[in-house]
C-alpha cells in the first residue's frame, strides 16, 4: 500500500486550476453510460449525488434514514465559513487557508486545505441561489459573524439552524434530480459491504431496513459520504444512527484509515444525568462569550451554587488562561473541565459537570439583553434539564462531537482502493488534528459540489471498468458474507442487549481514549476492548428475524463494527507520541499543561492498513510539508 497524495505541482494558488485542466474529461454523451453509487445523503453525499445527476451520470444514492433530508448534517447549528471578505476585515482565501492549517495544529495537507478555502466562496453563491435563507442585514446583504475564536467575521448562518438549511438546499437539488430520473434514491438502505472487482471498487452490498432483503448494487465508482464515528463513545452530540460501518467495511477491504485517534471533544454540552442517557446535547459555544465557568474551590463541596461566596469559587479558566479566560479553545476548555472533575470538584448529581454562570452578565447587561442573545438556548436548556438558567448557573460538560480522522484520500478524494472516493466527515483530509468551528459544513459541501464532480471524471475517463453483473463471484461472495454475519448475530441468543455493549464500549473509550490519553490507559483499553468484543459475540441478545424491520439487528451490526474500530483508534492514539489538536497525550505536555507537538517525528498522516482479523494493522506514513504556513506553536495564555 502506498499513500501517494497526488498533489499537483506548482504554486499553491494555482494547483487546483491547473489540476482541473489536467484531469481527463468524460465526453458528455458518454456520461450517461457511467453509473456512480453515492452512499450517504448528508451535506457531502446529497451535494455530490445532485451534482453528478446534473452532469448526466446515472446515480444511485443510499441512506439509512427514511428520507435523505434527515442526515445528521441537519443538526449543525452555528454556521459555515467562507472567504468572501464581505466585512472588509482582512479576510482572504489565504487567511482562511492559514487559519485552518494552524487550527488543525499542522497535521493537515496544505494543498487540500487551500482548495477548500478557494471554493468556499462558490458554496455560498450556490446555496443562496437555491434559496437558502441565510441571515441578512437590514440593507439586504448577507450577514456574518465571528465564530470559534476566529479574528474575522466569515461565518454565514441561518439562525441556529445552518446545517438544516444547507442540507435542505442540497436535498432539494437531489430531489430535483430524482424527479428527472438521473438519481435513484434508496432510503432505509444500509451499506454493509464493499464489492471490489479486479482491484476496483465496483459495488456495495446493502440491507433493506424494512424488508431485510440483502441486495447488491453495481457501478463504475463508489462514493462514501457516510459521516463521522463519534458514536464510538456511545454518548456524543451526534445523531443516534451515526456509525463507522461503511468506513470500516471499506477499511477491511483495503482502504487505509487515517488518523483515527483525532477526535474533537466539545466543551459546552449538557452533562449526563443518568445511566439511561442516550445522547448529549450541544449548547452553542457562543454562550462562553458571556458565561463564566467555575467550580467550588474545595472538593466535595455540595452546597447549592448561590450559597458559595465568591472566595470559595474557582473560575479556573480565567485563573489559568488570563488572556483568553472563558474563551479558551475547545480542547483546552474541555480538558480543564475534566481535570477539575477528576479532582472531585465537579458539580451536579454525578459530579461530572461545571457551572457556566450568567449571573454577572445579567447584573451587568440586564436579563433582557441576555434573553435577546441566548433566549432560545436558555429555553432548550430548561426544556432538557428543568432548570432555569436565568436563576441557576447552567451545568455543562464536554462531549464527543466530531471526528477529524477518517478514510485516507488523495487530492482527488480517492481512497487507497481504486474507484472508492470518500467525502465529508468520513474522510480525513482537511482539518488535521483539530477542526475549526463552522468548517465541517464548508468541507462537506466543497467536496460534494465542487471537488468530486471534477475529480471523478478523471477517474472514470481512465478506469475502463469491465462490464459485470450481480452473478459475478465477487458479488456473490460479498453477499454471502453479509448474510452470514447477520445470521450469526441473530443466532447468538445471549443475555445482554446491544445497547449495554455499546454503553460499555463508550465508557472504555471515554475513559482511556477521550479528552486526555496516556500509554497505560490506552494499553488498558487495548486489553478491555477485545474482551468486550469476545463477550459481545458470545452473549449479545438480538431478537427477531433478519427478514424484517429490526432496529436491534441494525444496531448490533453497527456496534460490532465499533468494537473492531475502537481498537484501531487506541492503537493510533498509542503510537502517536505527541500531543496535537484534539489528541492530548498526558506524557507530552509543557510544564503549564499545554499540548506539546513533536514535528520532528510526527509531522505525518498515519494511514493504517487492515491485515486480517486478529492481526495488528500496518502503519503507513504520508509525510506532511508546510511550505506556505510556517510551523508554529499555538498559545492561549
Amino acid at each position, binding site marked *: 500500500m502506498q499513500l501517494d497524495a497526488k498533489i499537483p505541482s506548482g504554486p499553491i494558488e494555482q494547483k487546483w486550476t491547473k489540476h482541473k485542466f489536467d484531469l481527463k474529461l468524460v465526453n458528455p454523451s458518454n456520461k450517461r453510460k457511467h453509473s456512480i453509487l453515492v452512499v450517504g445523503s448528508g451535506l457531502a453525499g446529497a*451535494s455530490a449525488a*445532485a*451534482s453528478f445527476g446534473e452532469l448526466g451520470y446515472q446515480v444511485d444514492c443510499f441512506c439509512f*434514514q*427514511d*428520507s*435523505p*433530508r*434527515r442526515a*445528521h448534517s*441537519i*443538526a449543525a447549528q452555528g454556521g459555515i465559513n467562507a472567504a468572501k471578505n464581505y466585512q472588509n476585515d482582512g479576510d482572504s482565501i489565504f487567511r482562511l487557508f492559514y487559519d485552518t492549517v494552524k487550527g488543525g495544529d499542522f497535521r493537515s495537507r496544505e494543498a487540500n486545505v487551500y482548495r477548500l478555502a478557494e471554493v468556499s466562496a462558490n458554496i455560498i*453563491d*450556490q446555496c*443562496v*441561489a*437555491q*434559496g437558502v*435563507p*441565510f*441571515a*441578512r*442585514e*437590514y*440593507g*439586504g446583504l*448577507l450577514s456574518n459573524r465571528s465564530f470559534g475564536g476566529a479574528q474575522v467575521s466569515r461565518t454565514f448562518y*441561518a*439562525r441556529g*439552524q445552518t446545517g*438544516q*438549511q444547507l442540507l*435542505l438546499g442540497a*436535498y*432539494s*437539488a437531489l*430531489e*430535483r434530480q*430524482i424527479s428527472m430520473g438521473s438519481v435513484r434514491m434508496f*432510503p432505509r438502505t444500509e451499506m454493509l459491504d464493499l464489492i471490489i472487482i479486479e482491484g476496483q471498487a465496483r459495488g456495495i452490498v446493502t440491507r433493506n431496513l*424494512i424488508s431485510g432483503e440483502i441486495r447488491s448494487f453495481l457501478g463504475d465508482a463508489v462514493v462514501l459520504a457516510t459521516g463521522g464515528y463519534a458514536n464510538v463513545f456511545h454518548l456524543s452530540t451526534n*445523531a*443516534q444512527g451515526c456509525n463507522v460501518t461503511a468506513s470500516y467495511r471499506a477499511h477491511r477491504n483495503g482502504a487505509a484509515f487515517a488518523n483515527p485517534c483525532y477526535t474533537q471533544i466539545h466543551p459546552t454540552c449538557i452533562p449526563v*444525568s*443518568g445511566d*439511561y442517557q*442516550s445522547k448529549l*446535547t450541544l449548547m452553542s459555544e457562543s454562550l462562553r462569550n458571556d458565561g463564566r465557568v467555575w467550580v467550588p474551590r474545595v472538593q466535595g463541596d455540595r452546597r447549592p451554587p448561590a450559597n458559595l461566596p465568591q472566595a470559595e469559587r474557582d473560575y479556573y479558566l480565567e485563573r489559568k488562561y488570563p488572556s483568553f479566560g472563558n474563551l479558551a479553545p475547545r480542547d483546552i476548555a474541555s480538558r480543564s473541565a475534566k481535570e477539575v472533575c477528576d479532582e472531585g470538584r465537579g458539580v451536579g448529581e454525578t459530579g461530572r459537570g461545571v457551572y457556566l454562570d450568567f449571573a454577572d452578565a445579567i447584573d451587568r447587561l440586564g436579563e433582557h439583553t441576555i434573553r435577546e442573545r441566548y433566549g432560545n438556548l436558555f429555553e432548550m436548556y430548561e*426544556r*432538557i*434539564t*428543568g432548570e432555569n438558567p436565568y436563576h441557576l448557573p447552567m451545568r455543562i460538560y464536554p462531549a464527543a462531537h466530531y471526528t477529524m480522522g477518517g478514510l485516507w484520500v488523495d487530492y482527488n478524494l480517492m481512497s487507497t482502493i481504486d474507484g472508492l472516493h470518500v467525502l465529508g466527515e468520513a474522510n480525513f483530509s482537511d482539518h488535521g488534528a483539530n477542526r475549526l468551528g463552522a468548517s465541517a459544513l464548508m468541507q462537506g459541501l466543497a467536496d460534494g*459540489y*465542487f471537488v468530486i464532480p471534477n475529480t471523478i471524471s478523471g477517474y472514470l475517463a481512465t478506469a475502463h471498468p469491465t462490464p459485470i453483473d450481480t452473478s459475478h463471484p465477487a458479488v456473490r461472495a460479498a453477499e454471502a458474507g453479509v448474510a452470514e454475519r447477520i445470521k450469526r448475530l441473530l443466532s447468538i441468543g445471549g443475555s445482554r*442487549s446491544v445497547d449495554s455493549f455499546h454503553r460499555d464500549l463508550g465508557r472504555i473509550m471515554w475513559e482511556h481514549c477521550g479528552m486526555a490519553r496516556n500509554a497505560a490507559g490506552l494499553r488498558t483499553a487495548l486489553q478491555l476492548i477485545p474482551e468486550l468484543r469476545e463477550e459481545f459475540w458470545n452473549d449479545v*441478545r438480538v*431478537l*427477531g428475524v433478519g427478514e*424484517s*424491520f429490526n432496529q436491534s439487528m441494525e444496531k448490533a451490526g453497527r456496534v460490532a463494527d465499533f468494537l473492531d474500530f475502537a481498537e484501531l483508534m487506541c492503537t493510533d492514539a498509542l503510537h502517536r507520541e505527541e500531543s496535537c489538536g484534539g489528541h492530548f497525550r498526558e506524557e507530552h505536555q509543557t510544564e503549564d499543561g499545554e499540548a506539546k507537538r513533536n514535528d520532528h517525528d510526527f509531522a505525518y498522516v498515519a494511514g493504517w492498513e487492515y491485515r486480517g482479523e486478529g492481526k495488528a494493522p500496518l502503519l503507513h506514513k504520508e509525510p506532511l510539508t508546510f511550505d506556505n504556513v510556517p510551523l508554529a506553536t499555538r498559545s492561549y495564555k
Partner: protein
Amino acid sequence: MNLTLRVWRQEHAQISGAFVTYPVSDINPDMSFLEMLDVVNEGLIARQETPIAFDHDCREGICGACSLTINGIPHGPNRATTACQLHMRFFADGDTIVIEPFRAKAFPVVRDLVVDRASFDRIIAAGGYVGVSTGSAPEANALPIAKAIADRAMDAAQCIGCGACVAACPNASAMLFTGAKVMHLGLVPQGQAERSDRVLRMVDQMDAEGFGGCTNYGECHEACPKEIPLEAIARLNGDYLRAALSSREEDAA
C-alpha cells in the same frame, strides 16, 4: 415514576395492529420520552419480547424522524416540542400514556410506531426546489433581500418534515407542509421563476398521494413543533389560484 403505557404494536403493514399495555416502573423524570422508551425496550429484551420499533435519530428536535402520537396529540402535549425533546417530568406518577404512530392514509405503518413518509419526499421532488445546477450561481450578494422577507422565508423554511401536521389534521391534509415550502421559495427572489409551476406540481402530487383537503381546522399549526404559521396555507392557496388561472389562460391562448 410508575406509568402505564398503551402502545400500538403492529408487526408489518400487511397485518392489523393493536394496543398492548405495559406497566413501567422507576422512570426518572429527567429522561426524555424516547429514553423512557429505550428503558422499556431494555426490559422487553430482557424478557425475550420484541422491542417496540420507533423512528428517531437526532434526538434534539431537528431531524424530524421521531413521530409519535402521545395521548392523541402528535409529539405530545408540550407546545413547540418534538417527542424526542419531551421530558418525563411533564407527566405525573401513575399516568396512563397512549402511544400511537402518526396516522394518515398517506403514511402507511412500517412497524409499530414507524410510518412511511416517502410521500413528503415526492411532494418536494415535484417542485420544492429552485432549478439551479451546481456552478451556475451568480455572486451571492448580487441580489439583496430585505431582512424582513428573509426572516419570514426562514420561518417557513424551518419545517422539519416530521408529518405532525398531517397526523393532527382531521382530514390528514398536507397543506401546512406543502405550504411551508411554497411560502419559503415564494418569498425569496430566487424562487420566482418557477413559482407557478412549483405550486401546481406540488399540489398535484399532494393530491395523488392521498392527503386530504384543508377545511381550516388549524390543528396542524397547533401540533407543529416548529410553529409554521398558518400563513403558509394562505400563501399556498393564493399561489395556486393565481397559477391555475394563468395556466388556464395560457391553455386558452
